[in-house]
């Protein structure tokens, strides 16, 4: 076996390996979609972020327009500060609302943006004023029970059935 054969086969091998890596990155993973785009950052405060994680999608009208890049805790107002990285192609007005929503019934949480009507657009570093925190399941259940109990109080009193003695 001579040098030329070895060189040829090693070249083929390395090329095939790199092609496989590229295939994985582009066709299997999400490299092609996001990282090359221009982005800008916007903050928002939430009373409760629920299960929101970094890299969670930010959707508007159901389309992904950005990703959550940072989550911090504000020790003065005791709120969560979420930093959102949005694609520069999508501009939103200053009075846009950010809500933390759940995809599906028990799925992952994401931020939904609803555009407002302000003429001035958000710039990098701005803070969104209007936010709605995540729905926490325990609060929902206790609220439901509370409502049910309140309903029972307002209804006309029915003679309670005495248990048999």
């Amino acid at each position: 076996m001579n040098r030329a054969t070895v060189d040829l086969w090693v070249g083929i091998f390395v090329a095939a390996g790199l092609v496989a890596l590229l295939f994985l990155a582009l066709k299997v993973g999400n490299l092609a979609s996001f990282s090359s785009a221009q982005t800008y950052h916007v903050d928002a405060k939430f009373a409760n972020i629920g299960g929101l994680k970094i890299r969670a999608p930010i959707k508007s009208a159901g389309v992904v327009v950005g990703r959550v890049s940072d989550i911090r805790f504000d020790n003065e107002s005791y709120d969560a500060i979420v930093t959102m990285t949005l694609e520069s192609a999508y501009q939103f007005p200053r009075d846009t609302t950010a809500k933390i929503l759940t995809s599906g019934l028990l799925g992952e949480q994401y931020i939904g943006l609803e555009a407002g009507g302000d003429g001035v657009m958000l710039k990098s570093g701005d803070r969104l004023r209007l936010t709605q925190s995540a729905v926490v399941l325990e609060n929902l259940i206790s609220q439901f029970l509370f409502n049910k109990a309140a309903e029972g109080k307002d209804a006309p009193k029915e003679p309670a059935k005495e248990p048999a003695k």
Partner: protein
Amino acid sequence: MSLPAVAALRSRLEALGSTVTSAIWRLGFASRFLGYLVLHSGTALRRFQLTMTEIYFAGVLSLIIILVSGLFVGMVLALQGYQTLQRYGASESLGVLVALSLVRELGPVVAGLLFASRAGSAITAEIGLMKATEQISAMEMMAVDPIARVVAPRFWGGVISMPLLAALFSGMGVFGGYLIGVQLIGVDAGAFWSQMQAAVDVREDIMNGVIKSVVFGIAVTWIAVFEGYDAVPTAEGVSRATTRTVVTSSLAILALDFILTALMFTGGNAR
């Protein structure tokens, strides 16, 4: 306890202790060997033809087993995965299942195990045989450092080959999953690929998989060259060294896989 029983117990404890201490001593020796090897890798990098020959022997000659195994693993994943996913109406996530399993775990680990048994054992046998037939001593007599000339190129050849083989394994596996899932079973091609692309993250999943395969490559090749160089220079010694390479490499891969997975895939994601 009677005296003979005490003596028997003591000798067994001593044997256990000496096994542990000799294993630790051997690890230290192997680490020094690795350090020397890396420091004297100049020849392997300057005369890159030597390393290229070793990439051929370690990588190119492992291609067939890697590609075929990758294909079959992907196909089996699709078959088995479909059975379970379908029960929960989630058969469109088949692509996600196949891709994540391969890229995160099966690609680096299975390719690593196959590499250890095919290329690792070959490297150990080769170096051990060179030692047994005095070729290593002959090289030393000719004032050529055998570690720089023989061992280093094989080490770098293995380290370079392993990540490429793992990527090829994963790629073939995804393709095999596609063949079975979409072509044979009938899962929607669009859902297959789009859900996969949404779920597989380049940085979290693919990059971590590549890191794993690099770590495995270093571990396996290190063990292979060390066992070969340290082998008793007889036929029996070489065969025992080859067996040790395969066993130790396989255990090392699985242990490192656990450690790396714990570091990479849990805790780091959520805040």
